[in-house]
């Protein structure tokens, strides 16, 4: 059930109605848990066992950590289970492809299906267990509560990666959503749907055509890459908006995951605005434990590089993702070395343009299917013949419209104001957004969300 399909909305409507029709809170929690497992099973019921197993392991490990004198053992067990499953499903074939030739063995690829959302729920579990180990989070006593934390359907398959303290603050002292929450939630669902179907899917058609078989031409390569850069932003932030919106309608509050990343004036700022729940996870559970910036400049650059390399690898098991992560790690290090990681008021516009250009170049590694394809596209961008652009007039119009909306939102936080503002502004704004969705949305094919594959 993709978020942008009618069956999912039917499912969500039923869950919402039942949730508020049931007067007893424990029953509501059971309903959410059952709905979440149903949602997950609708993709592939076999992986429910995996989800359930990891849930049990982490639930008991957290209790063990809290009660035991040797908590490290429980922590190691939990990490081994989570990373073991993640490694097996996601990286087995990659590692075989890397090491088999080194050992003089033929490469034999296994038919391994990646369980949906495994990268997200394992990271969410790890953060919980580590927080318990660090004494920053008490172990959850109720197994259904913990299971709901891991499986909660709005964020199960593609985040945001919710911290336990945020989730249980809502769950253990649940309050019905305020009027503003309801309005904001409905708005975010429509906004996310519009981002996905009217923007991401439109740009996906251009990006897929180009990257599935890249053709020569500088402008062709630039517009193809730009199309993917726009696609991935609208796709992922659209999904996140919907997830946050649905959670709000159910009385839960997810953290912000995107804050207009293409307005960032440095790569450092970009990562504070892009996939915030992952970058803050990498910071808290990888970069800082590695030493962060506490051991001198070179060690800081090294830590940044390692963090981003692993962040790249988290996205997918291929050298292209490693290169993408390494590229960002390198840029973060260079920025820090050059003292450019802090925003500059006077050079904001040129630095934003340079930052976006650098991020777009990075997307080539992310999207191209092979290293050779990445090299071809980059060669075309820098030294290709002029070629023809791939975006037509109204696609440019959509991009400019999105930029204007982002600038307005960045300056005036329109979304928040809209939720709190008078109905006579909210209703026409909702209608206009609906019109954009119906006139530009891709309805005839349900294009999967990019981050569902991670």
């Amino acid at each position: 059930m993709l978020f942008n399909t009618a069956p999912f909305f039917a499912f969500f409507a039923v869950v919402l109605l039942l949730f508020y029709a049931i007067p007893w809170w424990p029953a509501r929690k059971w309903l959410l848990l059952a709905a979440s497992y149903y949602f997950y099973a609708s993709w592939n019921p076999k992986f429910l066992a995996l989800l359930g197993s990891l849930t049990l392991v982490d639930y008991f490990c957290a209790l063990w950590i809290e009660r035991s004198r040797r908590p490290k053992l429980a922590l190691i067990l939990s990490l081994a289970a989570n990373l073991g499953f993640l490694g097996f499903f996601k990286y087995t074939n990659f590692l075989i492809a890397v090491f088999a030739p080194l050992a003089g063995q033929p490469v034999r690829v296994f038919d391994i299906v990646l369980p949906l959302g495994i990268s997200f729920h394992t990271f969410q579990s790890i953060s919980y267990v580590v927080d318990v180990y660090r004494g920053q989070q008490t172990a959850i006593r109720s197994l259904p509560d913990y299971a709901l934390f891991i499986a909660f359907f709005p964020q199960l398959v593609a985040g945001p990666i919710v911290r336990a303290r945020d989730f249980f603050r809502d769950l253990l002292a649940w309050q019905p959503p305020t009027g503003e929450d309801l309005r904001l939630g409905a708005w975010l669902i429509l906004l996310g749907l519009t981002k996905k179907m009217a923007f991401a899917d439109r740009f996906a058609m251009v990006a897929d055509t180009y990257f599935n078989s890249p053709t020569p031409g500088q402008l062709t390569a630039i517009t193809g890459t730009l199309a993917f850069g726009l696609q991935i932003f609208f796709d992922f932030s659209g999904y996140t908006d919907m997830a946050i919106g649905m959670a709000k309608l159910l009385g839960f509050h997810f953290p912000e995951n995107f804050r207009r990343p293409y307005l960032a004036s440095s790569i450092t700022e970009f990562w504070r605005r892009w996939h915030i729940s992952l970058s803050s996870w990498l910071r808290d559970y990888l970069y800082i434990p590695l030493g962060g910036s506490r051991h001198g400049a070179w060690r800081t650059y090294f830590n940044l590089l390692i963090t981003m390399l692993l962040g790249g690898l988290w996205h997918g098991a291929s050298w292209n993702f490693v290169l993408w992560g390494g590229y960002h790690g390198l840029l973060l290090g260079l920025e820090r070395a050059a003292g450019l990681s802090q925003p500059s008021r006077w050079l904001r516009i040129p630095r934003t343009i340079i930052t976006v250009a650098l991020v777009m170049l990075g997307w080539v590694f992310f999207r191209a299917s092979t290293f050779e394809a990445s090299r071809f596209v980059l060669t075309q961008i820098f030294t290709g013949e002029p070629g023809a652009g791939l975006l037509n007039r109204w696609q440019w119009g959509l991009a400019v419209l999105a930029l204007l909306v982002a600038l307005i939102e960045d300056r005036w936080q329109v979304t928040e104001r809209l939720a709190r503002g008078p109905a006579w502004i909210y209703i026409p704004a909702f209608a206009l957004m609906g019109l954009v969705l119906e006139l530009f949305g891709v309805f005839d094919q349900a294009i999967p969300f990019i981050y569902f594959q991670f």
Partner: protein
Amino acid sequence: MPTTRRAAVVTILASLASVFLLDAAIFRTGIYMRWVEADSSTGLTEYRFRAERDRQRQAGNLVLTFGDSRMAYLPRVANQYTSKSGYVFRHAGTAGSSARDWYYLMRDLDPRANRYQAIVIGLDDLEDEDSLVSRQDDPRSLHYNIGRLALTDLWDFAISHPSPAYQWAAIRGGILKGIVMQEDFHHLLLHPKARIRSANLNWTGWAGWAYDYDDEERSLAGLSIDWKTRQLSFSPGMDPGYRKMFQETLLRKPALATGLRGDYQRHWFGRMANHYRNSATRFVFVRLPRGPLSPRTDVLLNPNSSIRQLAKQPRVFLGTPLRYMELERPDYFKDPLHLNRAGAHAFSKMLVDEVRELIGPPH
């Protein structure tokens, strides 16, 4: 002041309604249809609708015909015989359309069932064998009818498509018409000046151009077939693509009669006939010339086919099956399916004669 939950729910419901109302204001009031691309499925239907509705004010004793592109008759030629026949012929069919599309257009053109002396439908054959293209699950149908569909038609129209995907597309598009008009709107955004210019031209000129249209002169003269060996002989310079078309039409093996086409025709032609049940309007089915090369005989596959059953109803008439056999010659066709100018002229006159014979003089 904080918004109460009740007020928020009301606002959200009003917002959802406002999406529909905004769509309706644009696509249900005629505002957008004024600028629709004439050379599109929706545009053709809408221009046709407006032309025929306007024509109703100007002439009496109207006979309205429906058919797809194979119904290559020319009302202008047919009306040269009005003094003899007593009827003014009009045509509301469009290429690629079928019974479902004709029903909605006919219903909107004649809501009280009193504006036409007869409704004439041109058919490929009178049987229920499955046709080359599935008419039931035709995605074009939504585009032909989108300007005609009211909310009350939604369910009926949607379930007339067998596949759930088309049913859902019909419900979705029937509620928010902008979804169906997307492509047209994108084209308008890309070429606004050209669209406005052509819309202004079409607004005044389309009906006249459509009426004055004359078919192409090219013919298939020189084409022949040996029916024993089923070998075709092409004249030099003939489009090689026609060979495939002949294989799929003239030489194709008998198709399955799954019942789907019969059900479809029974349903939609039945509704059309039912629309005129208590009126004086007659309903006529005619069989179109089959093709440039056709056997001299006809095989009756099903004496109780949907069309033959419908023809048993009062005021429903069935034309003679091989009435137009003399037109089934290569020199009357421009391609394996369509009459050329000479064929269309000859057919138009013969159609007037047949309709006049079947329904008699105007009343």
